[in-house]
């Protein structure tokens, strides 16, 4: 990226970061942009914690015998890894950081509809996080992130209640964010910004919000019931009084399957933006991609039973869930194909965000295809609860969602901070992450097919070679994740300003200064164009690329 030849852009005089910096100016801010930054701090902490747990997991699994830590410590480690990564990192990652920051700007609004609630949701998130962190400090819990009863309600040791309540609380942060987004998208769009002129990023978040509103409360009440059962030693799922543990699984997955789309849909939105910007083309099949988001959100609510094929769920229910699982893969396929088609005859600039987006497409495809395999009844009977599943979901969550998040972070970093990061290191680290990731998780597919169960602290010796590969990959991957932290932070001290539109991208967010002023727009914008309309070749436009 070499956009610095024109009159060197200067930092605007007044912007959302230039205001007062006393603690209450941040901690009581109602500016969606500052709240986005607060969230960024929050999720980074939890990602680092979760990553630390991942490192411990991989160290333990380097040898077959459970020699590094006792079994119950290992169990706590992977449980906390899952809980932190899912509820405190990945679910809020893109919506609460990038969505918060960009969604109002992209639709030409001054803020989200309910700024106070937005701030409240951050506090709720942090309180939930603090409780969970406290739970971690006093030893962590060993229920698995899925909290299956009766293990979680009666048998597991540790501060299950604390962590469960932490997750319960954090759930409401997610709900409130979704609520805010829905109202904002419905009510705050700039004049002329019709639904089909919305960036796909906004569509992705709209779909995500639907899931947050309709799914999260169900898991909240479920977790509450588990907590009550633990507290009073008798409860709704308790088999001793005729309660059915499988009902817990229904309720849990009613949320937790759609929740995986909370993780991926925003990421898909980011990828759509990046692909369009870096190939300077309208996203191919814009409407198909937009509706695919909604399709995923709705169909995503109809497939949860594919996590329960071995549980004793009825055959008929299993068959229905399996078939609809195939249906839900279709909108994802539509997106993948449309992104690929967008690249066709584009003018593609190999900047770091694009590298992440391409990585996303490839790795999400692998993750998704293995998901389809898992959705196939006869096959799942073998690989359920083995490392095949672990590999599947890391491919979609790390290879998919996180790469999307990193891509978005790099893409909008100049907008958020007004600074450019180091181009060289960013490309190097993207490469390291790609290699490390595949080395970590590809061997796990094989392990799973060989039959290595997940959540195993020790394992038979014949699995060791693949496990060593995986552990080696994880250390590479870990390095790959640390480098961006360094150069992104370093860029803040950078004297080079990014300018309003370093990528030559279209979209409302690129028409305002970087970093944006507190009110976003001096004059309310009026939208007259379709999204992603790139000017035709001969017009001399923003100089970027190569």
């Amino acid at each position, binding site marked *: 990226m070499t956009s610095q030849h024109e009159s060197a852009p200067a930092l605007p005089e007044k912007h959302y970061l230039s205001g007062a910096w006393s603690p209450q100016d941040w901690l009581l801010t109602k500016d969606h942009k500052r709240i986005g930054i607060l969230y960024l701090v929050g999720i980074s902490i939890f990602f680092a914690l979760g990553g630390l747990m991942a490192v411990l997991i991989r160290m333990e699994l380097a040898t077959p015998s459970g020699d590094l830590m006792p079994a119950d410590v290992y169990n706590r480690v992977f449980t906390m890894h899952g809980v932190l990564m899912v509820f405190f990192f990945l679910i809020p990652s893109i919506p609460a950081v990038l969505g918060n920051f960009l969604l109002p700007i992209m639709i030409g609004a001054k803020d989200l509809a309910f700024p106070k609630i937005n701030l409240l949701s951050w506090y709720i998130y942090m309180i939930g996080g603090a409780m969970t962190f406290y739970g971690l400090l006093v030893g962590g819990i060993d229920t698995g992130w899925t909290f299956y009863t009766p293990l979680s309600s009666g048998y597991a040791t540790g501060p299950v209640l604390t962590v469960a309540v932490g997750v319960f609380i954090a759930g409401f942060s997610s709900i409130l964010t979704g609520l805010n987004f829905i109202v904002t998208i419905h009510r705050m769009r700039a004049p002329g910004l019709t639904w089909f002129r919305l960036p796909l990023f906004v569509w992705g978040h709209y779909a995500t919000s639907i899931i947050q509103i*309709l799914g999260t409360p169900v898991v909240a009440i479920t977790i509450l019931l588990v907590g009550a059962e633990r507290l009073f030693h008798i409860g709704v799922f308790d*088999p001793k009084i005729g309660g059915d543990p499988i009902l817990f699984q*229904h309720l849990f997955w009613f949320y937790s399957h759609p929740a995986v789309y909370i993780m991926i849909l925003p990421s898909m939105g980011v990828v759509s933006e990046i692909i369009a910007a870096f190939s300077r083309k309208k996203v191919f099949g814009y409407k198909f991609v937009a509706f695919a988001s909604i399709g995923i959100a709705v169909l995503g609510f109809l497939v949860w039973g594919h996590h329960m094929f071995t549980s004793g769920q009825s055959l008929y229910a299993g068959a229905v869930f399996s078939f609809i699982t195939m249906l839900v893969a279709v909108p994802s396929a539509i997106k993948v194909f449309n992104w690929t088609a967008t690249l066709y005859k584009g003018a593609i600039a190999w900047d770091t965000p694009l590298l992440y987006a391409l990585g996303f497409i490839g790795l999400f495809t692998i993750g998704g295809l293995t998901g389809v395999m898992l959705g196939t009844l006869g096959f799942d009977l073998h690989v359920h609860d083995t490392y095949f599943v672990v590999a599947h979901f890391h491919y979609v969550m790390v290879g998919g969602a996180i790469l999307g998040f990193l891509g978005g972070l790099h893409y909008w970093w100049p907008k958020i901070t007004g600074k450019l990061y180091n181009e060289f290191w960013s490309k190097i680290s993207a490469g390291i992450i790609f290699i490390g990731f595949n080395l970590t998780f590809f061997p796990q597919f094989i392990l799973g097919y060989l039959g290595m169960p997940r959540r195993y602290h020790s394992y038979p010796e014949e699995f060791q070679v693949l496990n060593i590969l995986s552990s080696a990959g994880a250390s590479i991957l870990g390095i790959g994740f640390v480098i961006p932290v360094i150069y992104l932070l370093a860029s803040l001290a950078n004297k080079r300003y990014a300018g309003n539109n370093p990528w030559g991208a279209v979209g409302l967010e690129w028409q305002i200064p970087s970093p944006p002023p507190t009110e976003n727009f001096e004059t309310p914008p009026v939208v007259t164009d379709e999204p992603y309309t790139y000017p035709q070749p001969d017009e001399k436009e923003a100089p970027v690329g190569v």
Partner: protein
Amino acid sequence: MSVHVAPLKTYIYVFLALMFFTVLTVGVAFVNFAHHAPKGIGNVLNDAVAMSIALTKAVLVVAFFMHVKGSTKITPVVIWGTLIFMVILFVFTGADYLTRPMTTFVPVMSQ
């Protein structure tokens, strides 16, 4: 802006209707509809009647007390949307229970 203010008596009528249905639902709870219905559906008939009455009451509250009639187009969409997902939750979970034999079974639990 005080456009959608309904007359006082609307509220009173709705309240009276709600009272009527409340008393009705208590009354019919003691009638065994199974005696008057073909075997098979008889068992669920009482439940169906009670739930229909409750639904009617809910609709009254939503329509008049909560002013859905005077509100924007999107409100019914939100309500119907939510109900659809509730139905999904019930139907799919119910489908599992209805199609697997559920003989009750109290396990011996060690602990």
